[in-house]
């Protein structure tokens, strides 16, 4: 069992790397502090920089269960915390009635009919390792839900009126992600440690491609990482994230390429650029230059 409370930042970096996630110093320090101080970690960054992945790798590393709450507009406690299994309750009522017994309300609202949703599961876990709670895309939920969440993240407890208060002895590891479609409320931010995940630099991105897509030939990986770096400098609508870089490297490998060339880039541009305007801009900029510069940078 991996230790839940690491002693050094280096230990975090290594733990994550062992589970195929390469974090830079900033992210590793934030995770280290989140584990040591038992604070939620709020991650923001462009799409595709690996925010959600952080929670997944933390679960693998700590050995805790990954409990994921995908936020969306209008999410409320019946989807996030708990709900009663109404159809079973109704069936139960019919059965009781058929046998001419009295209806026992306590029985109707016992754990047997309780459907636990992610937040309750993350607090009422069994075993010794607290789960990793991923609250994904918190910016999609509305303010009311955020306020509710704030309460849970401060007290690590939830009150279910029919059953009582559920409290976690050791709080779960909490990772929140946001795409910044709106500002997360300050009160919630104050509870959290904050880290902005930027696009990786060339060396790190190369290391990530090697790690995540080991089939990609070394030279091609270098070319692709260099080209991705160059594309991010072109003021595109959606600069490619690491996820796109990996997809691109895999796509080129699947086409049997060992290095970048213009025809292959032209054919696979859609795996790395998802806007027509961006593709046009890059083609206008010149694919020949892109390939030449990338090969020079990668070498």
């Amino acid at each position: 069992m991996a230790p839940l409370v690491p002693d050094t930042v280096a230990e975090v970096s290594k733990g994550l790397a062992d589970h195929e996630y390469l974090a830079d110093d900033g992210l590793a320090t934030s995770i280290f502090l989140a584990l040591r101080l038992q604070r939620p970690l709020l991650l923001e960054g462009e799409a595709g920089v690996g925010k959600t992945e952080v929670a997944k790798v933390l679960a693998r590393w700590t050995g805790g269960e990954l409990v994921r709450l995908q936020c969306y507009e209008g999410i409320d406690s019946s989807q996030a915390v708990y709900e009663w299994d109404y159809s079973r309750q109704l069936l139960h009522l019919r059965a009781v009635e058929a046998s001419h017994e009295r209806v026992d309300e306590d029985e109707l609202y016992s754990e047997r009919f309780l459907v636990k949703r992610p937040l309750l599961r993350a607090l009422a876990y069994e075993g010794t390792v607290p789960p990793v709670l991923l609250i994904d895309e918190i910016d999609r939920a509305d303010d009311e839900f955020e306020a509710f969440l704030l309460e849970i993240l401060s007290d690590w407890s939830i009150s279910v009126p029919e059953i009582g208060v559920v409290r976690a002895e050791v709080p779960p590891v909490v990772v929140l992600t946001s795409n910044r479609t709106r500002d997360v409320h300050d009160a919630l931010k104050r509870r959290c440690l904050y880290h902005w995940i930027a696009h990786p630099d060339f060396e790190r991105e190369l290391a990530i491609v090697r790690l995540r897509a080991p089939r990609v030939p070394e030279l091609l990986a270098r070319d692709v990482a260099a080209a991705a770096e160059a594309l991010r400098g072109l003021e595109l609508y959606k600069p490619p994230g690491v996820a796109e870089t990996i997809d691109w490297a895999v796509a080129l490998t699947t086409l049997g390429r060992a290095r970048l060339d213009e025809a292959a880039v032209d054919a696979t541009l859609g795996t790395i650029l998802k806007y027509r305007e961006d593709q046009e801009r890059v083609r206008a900029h010149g694919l020949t230059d892109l390939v030449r510069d990338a090969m020079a940078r990668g070498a």
Partner: protein
Amino acid sequence: MPEVALDPAPERMAVAFARVLRRSGLEVPVGATLMFAEALGCVGLAGRSGVYWAARATMVNRPESIALFDRAFAVFWDQRAATGPDVVEMAPEEVIIALDVPGADDPGEADTDTTADAPVVTLRWSAREILRHRDFALYTPAEFAEARRLMDDLRLVGASRPSRRRKQSRVHRGTPDLRRTVRRSLRAGGEPVERAFLTTGERTRRLVLLLDVSGSMEPYARAFVRFLHAAVISRSRVEAFALGTRLTRVTRELASRDPDAAVLAAARRVVDWSGGTRLGDGVRRFNDEWGIRGLARGAVVVIFSDGWDRGAPEVLAEQMARLSRVAHRIVWVNPLKASPGYAPLAQGMAAALPYVDAFVEGHSLAALEELARVIAE
């Protein structure tokens, strides 16, 4: 929470650094300072990188603050003043907007109106009527002070849209509400006699206000800032941005309840009151950084601009097209539209018009009231 033993050094360091950050303009709540002190207890004080990341994780909570933070940290850690071109950007910008302190400019003028024989109410009303239709550009400071009071009464109602959040239905139609049905059936000894239903709720659409703060807009800027302020404080889900040579989010500044302080703060952040503007680039920056990723999705977007664009019209047209693909409606407020014989000859305006759902004047109080109505549609 585990007990972290704090020797006095990290605490002192945390407090001192918090002070440096506040001086350079970052908001640092006390809780963040405490968290930083705790974090220092974990990473130690020896390494620059450890202290830097501990401070950033605890005291920064939005990417816009990172540049400011980095400079403050460099000053703090390296005990040297940040020098070089960066400092220029950091210094408070010259504010060109004239702030009207009520009564300071013409202390007599406001009084003369009210000392006349007729009842005060009538006089004020007629003054208001004249004022309502007067072009903002022709206002005297005293009239502006009066208009400002009128504008504080302005309340914006937003357009609504169906919400995913459901609410209890009054009629027996819609999705069954099993939770309440089970509850009620207990009353009937377990028989679901009385059934309950859910219906879809409604919620207000987000309102996004983009204010062009280039020089040609200056006569109207003060009035529009007031309008923005009234919008931001009177309802939720409003975002305001100033469009100039750069894009500045001013929602927070405008959200303060004290309008004068809010306007001053907003003016301080916006540096382009009299520069020319590249409208297309501004809208593009809005689209890239805020709009497309969600802020403008399904929202009512209001652009306050005279449409004078120093950039290429194709850029503006392309960006307006992008914006119109995600926004619910785009309202363009052009104070020049009220001038007799106005035709959208400004290249930018002509390029943008095909993507605009409502084109209104906004040059006077009456026009702003009309705008409030259009927004609510």
